[in-house]
């Protein structure tokens, strides 16, 4: 099964795009991919799949790619695992990358899990650190057991070495309009009618980026659906509103604002967790915050172990008082 003797080189980043909008995590991976490619002395290649996406390829070059491979066809919009997977497989077989990085979004994970199998690739999920050793072997570090342990995963005998990374783990690559690189249109190998599925409707809402915020105020189950005090405090602190998965599942807050293992990683100076219990899967997304403040009615809530300052109390009282002290607008009456 090993194919050691064939040469595999270059670091690829899958640039996730929906209707022309690029997922922010793709630019984060370009920054990381640039570091890895510089270390191994290889090229950084952006893979762009979609319809009318030449400009995305050009932007990827401005953000650090040496080359962009663009597969442009109506069959690729909206995303479906089948057509994307077949195209990816053809490109991998033809061009043999050594490393492929993919954003750990719902789409990225759907795609990565599909393509790793026919490519005979090793795929490491949700990496938080990526490095290469002297032989170009990818060292992928990832949390397991809800973040209690870190595992280093290698893929010694199979290429490509693939990894997914959740949004917010790395800083995004900046745009530099002076950077040069090729944007190459590749042959599309997919027929419109071999797809096993068809998208009937698609509705994309808020794609807020909470990963760059200096202040994040997050609410959880304890809000009981009333996010007004959370929003008012975020406003007073010029921060972003975020949420636990519970609050997102209840439909109180958009998924783009979910913090945690299956949401985003945030690294603000200040993270306020209001009415959030502190489950491991949540804490994993906020552990890198500089200072954590917790507001919870339960003195035994695990969140207090992960907080610098905690206050035992009802968030519907504590947050408005805090907002007041911090010079924010007076909070609106609860809408319950």
């Amino acid at each position: 099964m090993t194919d050691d003797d064939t040469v595999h080189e270059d670091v690829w980043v899958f640039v996730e795009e929906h209707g022309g909008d690029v997922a922010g995590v793709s630019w984060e991976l370009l920054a990381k991919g640039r570091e890895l490619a510089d270390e191994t002395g290889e090229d950084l290649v952006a893979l762009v799949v979609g319809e009318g996406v030449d400009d995305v390829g050009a932007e990827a070059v401005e953000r650090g790619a040496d080359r962009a491979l663009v597969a442009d066809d109506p069959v690729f919009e909206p995303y479906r695992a089948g057509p994307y997977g077949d195209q990816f497989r053809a490109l991998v077989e033809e061009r043999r990358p050594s490393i492929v990085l993919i954003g750990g979004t719902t789409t990225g994970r759907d795609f990565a899990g599909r393509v790793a199998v026919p490519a005979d690739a090793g795929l490491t999920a949700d990496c938080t650190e990526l490095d290469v050793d002297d032989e170009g072997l990818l060292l992928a570090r990832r949390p397991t057991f809800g973040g209690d342990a870190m595992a280093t995963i290698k893929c010694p005998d199979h290429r490509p070495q693939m990894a997914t990374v959740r949004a917010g783990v790395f800083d995004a690559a900046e745009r530099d309009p002076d950077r040069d690189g090729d944007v190459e249109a590749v042959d599309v190998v997919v027929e419109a009618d071999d797809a096993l599925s068809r998208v009937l409707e698609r509705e994309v809402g808020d794609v807020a980026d909470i990963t760059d915020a200096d202040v994040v105020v997050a609410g959880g189950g304890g809000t009981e659906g009333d996010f007004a005090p959370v929003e008012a405090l975020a406003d007073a602190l010029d921060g972003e509103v975020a949420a636990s998965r519970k609050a997102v599942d209840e439909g109180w807050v958009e998924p783009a604002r979910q913090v945690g293992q299956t949401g985003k990683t945030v690294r603000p100076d200040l993270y306020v967790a209001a009415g959030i219990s502190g489950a491991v899967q949540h804490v994993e997304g906020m552990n890198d915050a500089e200072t954590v403040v917790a507001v919870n009615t339960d003195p035994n809530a695990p969140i207090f172990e992960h907080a610098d300052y905690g206050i035992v109390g009802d968030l519907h009282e504590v947050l408005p008082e805090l907002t007041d002290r911090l010079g924010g607008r007076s909070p609106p009456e609860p809408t319950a």
Partner: protein
Amino acid sequence: MTVDADWTIVVPVKQVPDADDVTIDPETGTLNRSDAPAVLNAPDYNAVEAALSLRERAGGEVVAVTMGPPFARAVLETAVALGADDAVLLTDRAFGGSDTWPTSLALARAADELDADVVVCGEESTDSSTGQVPPGIAAHNGWAQLTYAEELEPRPDDDELVAVRDVEGGHERVAAETPVVVAFEYGENEPRAAGLHRKIYAETEFEPEEWSAEDLGISEQVGLVNSPTKVGGMDTADPVEREQAVVDDVDALSDRITEVTADD
């Protein structure tokens, strides 16, 4: 082709250590999973529920499958107690050390063997949480996949399953041809409780079928040697140092926040 509108719905379920009880051996860096009681992966309750609900609407049967050591049969009993009609244990020393590539191969072969129309997985496991097994099963069999599904609508007469999927910041409705592999989103339905009679049956009478790697014809394709990824080392995550100071009043908290946000 059988003329059979009823669906065979296969639910892969995973046994995981109870999250709160996993310890790491500081000498070897390996996990002491044996200390932790083994339980059904929490998201798989949602998968079982989704499968039972499909059975109620489409007709057919639900078969739970797990790949693991012999004692993993406990999660099959749980699935049967919840309402699964039957269950298969994939167990063999040859499976040891499998990463997601061979794990999804074994489950794919089992699903094929069972003539599955629909495979309903959980979103991800609570221990290694890759979420790679469901799309892996679909890829091995060349079947359609519907990951991050929140709602399912069976259309057995059209050999189709329609799902509402969570896509970043939104939703889509997708129709997929059967056979299809679903990964059902954690928390998106209310798993039923096991009925008493069913529970007694599962614990006392029920025996799962057992299949080996050889039965599935994949002895040479599974296990550690056939896994592209290797766990190179494991260590405890450095705990983040926090003050853990509980303040008594909002004034004190407000002062702290002002200090923190004035820093930069």
